[in-house]
């Protein structure tokens, strides 16, 4: 604390039409410190970074660099001022050499020719400073993502940076690679560079950070030394609720006991590196298993492995006791598994096709090309679901892309219900949907469950998970840390488990 902050952001406000993204946000970065910015989705982390790197102009507020007010107008301008950024998606050229990537756009010249010797020597030195020793003349794509990440950092640092911003640098790294990255960051700390680190991983935050700033709904919650903030306090600051069991522990009351002794799906040690650590799950007919955890904790990754979208590297899946290999969605569908993906637009709806076609799509896919459902049956089926699920549309022939989010979600639900699945995976089924439609969809899910459907429920709204789940598997940093009874649990006990305390 002896040092003066190298960078101060004061009372930053930024609104977009209809949304206040940042309201009086504060941030202080000290030289030689790693500063983590934490917050849930929509807390304003990315807007804060965008303002700092000149991508967005703040509506009001001040940015002081070494005590002088600055107003970067572009990423380039920010870099010239000494604020370098490594964005989430590594934006390097995989087909160029490591050295070229580090110096691209500012090759040192010797007369009219590029000075390759200097480039190679300095690239080698820049990486050596991060404790990385590789042949810089080799093509970037030959190296693992972690090394590519380091190259991106080396590139960011090769322009006399005082401040280094890392936006989710670890999201595609496995554990060893994260450790390598952290070694490099520690090296940078010794060089007195201020590092801003954005991540969703709690363990990593505590492993590397000296200071934590928490944002919530665009507002500054507080700045804390990492050593003085417990995990539970951090989570509470992020979600903005102290213990209020009364409001959220309220369950429907009716207990849905498992219909069968044996789980419908039993997962043992299912895992894939960089996605999820080996996980055990049992999903019963007539029960909702919730996946609880913060963003990036491996919820969607688990669902994708179960549905055969990504390949599992370890573990087994048994359905009704019989081991199965699910290496494509097609196989999962055959086994009676249905999946409503998180990203409705890009992974769910087929926008230009009609509601009818969207509803029968999965059923038709399972029947194959030649057993085509007669048009009459298709229409009857579509009309029935439109009525049953209350999809608001003049008729079934309207392109699904023209419906509202809630109605699209219901149509997707109809697509899967038409296949009469045995298990339904719902990944953020209520995201971007108004509250009335949200409740309707949750009721539909509950009703299906009572009919004996097994449900795996994923939502970033913990209260929602608690309300519908019979059991909750709690995930943290891509690892299952425990399981709790959904009836007995409240948000606080889930958060305590996420924080790592014994519940």
């Amino acid at each position, binding site marked *: 604390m002896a040092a003066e902050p190298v960078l101060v952001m004061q009372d930053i406000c930024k609104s977009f039409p209809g949304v206040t993204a940042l309201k009086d946000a504060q941030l202080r970065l000290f030289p030689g410190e790693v500063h983590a910015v934490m917050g849930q989705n929509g807390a304003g982390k990315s807007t804060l970074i965008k303002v700092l790197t000149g991508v967005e102009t703040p509506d009001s507020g001040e940015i002081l660099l070494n005590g002088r007010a600055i107003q970067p107008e572009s990423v380039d301008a920010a870099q010239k001022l000494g604020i370098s950024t490594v964005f989430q998606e590594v934006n390097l050229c995989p087909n160029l050499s490591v050295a070229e990537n580090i110096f691209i756009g500012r090759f040192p010249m010797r007369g009219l020719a590029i000075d390759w010797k200097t480039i190679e020597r300095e690239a080698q030195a820049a990486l050596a400073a991060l404790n990385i020793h590789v042949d810089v003349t080799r093509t970037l794509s030959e190296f693992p993502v972690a090394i590519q990440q380091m190259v991106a950092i080396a590139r960011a640092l090769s322009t006399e940076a005082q401040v280094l911003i890392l936006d989710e640098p670890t999201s595609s790294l496995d554990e060893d690679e994260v450790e390598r990255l952290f070694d490099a960051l520690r090296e940078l700390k010794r060089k007195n560079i201020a590092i801003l680190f954005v991540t969703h991983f709690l363990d990593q935050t505590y492993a590397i950070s000296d200071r934590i700033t928490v944002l919530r709904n665009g507002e500054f919650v507080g700045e804390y030394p990492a050593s003085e903030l417990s995990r539970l306090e951090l989570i509470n600051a992020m979600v903005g609720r102290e213990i209020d069991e009364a409001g959220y522990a309220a369950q429907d009351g009716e207990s849905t006991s498992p219909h069968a002794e044996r789980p419908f799906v039993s997962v043992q040690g299912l895992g894939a590196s960089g996605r999820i650590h080996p996980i055990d799950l049992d999903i019963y007919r007539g029960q909702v298993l919730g996946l609880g955890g913060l963003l990036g904790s491996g919820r969607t990754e688990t669902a994708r492995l179960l*549905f055969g*979208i990504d390949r599992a590297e370890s573990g087994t899946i048994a359905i009704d006791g019989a081991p199965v290999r699910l290496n*494509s*969605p*097609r196989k*999962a*569908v*055959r086994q009676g598994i249905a*999946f409503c*993906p998180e990203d409705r637009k*890009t*992974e*769910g*709806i*087929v*926008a*230009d*096709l009609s509601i009818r*076609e969207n509803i029968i*799509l*999965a059923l*038709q*896919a*399972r*029947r*194959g*090309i*030649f*057993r*085509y*459902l007669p048009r009459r049956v298709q229409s009857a089926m579509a009309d029935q679901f439109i009525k049953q699920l209350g999809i608001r549309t003049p008729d079934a022939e309207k392109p699904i892309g023209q419906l509202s989010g809630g109605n699209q979600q219901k149509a997707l639900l109809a*697509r899967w219900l038409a296949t009469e699945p045995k298990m339904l995976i719902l990944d953020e089924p209520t995201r971007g949907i108004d509250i009335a439609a949200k409740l309707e969809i949750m009721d539909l899910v509950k009703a299906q469950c009572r009919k004996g459907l097994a449900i795996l429920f994923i939502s970033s709204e913990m209260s929602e998970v608690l309300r519908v789940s019979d059991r909750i598997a709690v995930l943290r940093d891509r690892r299952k840390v425990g399981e709790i009874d959904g009836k007995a649990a409240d948000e606080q006990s889930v958060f305590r488990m996420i924080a790592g305390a014994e519940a």
Partner: protein
Amino acid sequence: MKATLLKLTRSHLFWPCVTLVLLCLVNVHFNPGFFNIEIKDGHLYGSVIDILNRAAPLMLIAMGMTLVIATRGIDISVGATVAIAGAVAASLIGGSLVIKEGVQTYVSNTPMPLAFAAALFVALLCGLWNGLLVAGAGMQPIVATLILMVAGRGVAQLITEGQIVTVYYEPFFFIGNGFIFGIPVSLYIVAAVLGVLLLLTQRTALGLFIESVGINPVASRFSGISARALVFWVYAFCSVTAGIAALIITSNVKSADANNAGLLLELDAILAVALGGTSLAGGRFYLIGTLVGALIIQTLTYAIYSLGVPPEINMVVKAIVVFGVCIIQSPALRDLLLKHALRSGGPA
């Protein structure tokens, strides 16, 4: 009245048909006998029949191309596939005129059905190769099919040993020049392929799956459609249509020229698909529209020749007309013109 007109103009077939009619009118203006059809030697004879007959190979390939484009792909190797399949057919049939017991008889090197089967099989292999690169290796369609486009003519050269192979076997000429009940044989082939395709795309789920994969491949896969297998077979089918077209073309010119057979046919096929109203971005596709598109191209070619446009500039004329047609079919401009017409048209 206005409402029906508007509804009519919204049909995807409206603008291609308008274009075709306009082109025919141009032809009639310069050649009053354009629509005349007479019966000569027991079969129909006239400009229109000629256009239909000559458009047959393009119509076939364009139908295959329609499906490829509907899946978000493109196949620029069809011209080369025509050269390969044509070379196979011509080399296998070859043929010569011999006198057997005092009677002139044509003898082929290989039985004709076998030669046809071989040509189509080779075309299928070309398609499987494309499909493997696109669906299996995940290459971009234009790059994947570029390989065969470039290599294909070399392969055809190998088959013909660098020569133009001339066919001397009368029965083979029937496909490209023959008539059944007065109508060119090639049109029966087009009708048959169209019939099969309409059946497959409308009476089975194939059409739905192709459109679904073309609009949103990820969502389609997540719904349990085997998108890769579908794309794979669509490329295979497209090449087979090129193989059939190759038989007609080879028969028509009675020879196989590895360098020129089907030259630039891929571009005409893509153009036919686009003129027919199918978006190059994939998704909804229109087979009948594609056929109209192919006829537009052939009618245009005919008009250019019959007008006596000097051969050295006929490509420019063709380009100008195609540009005009594409502009007319652009929805943005169309809406603009329509709005203007309705406003200035007053109470219609």
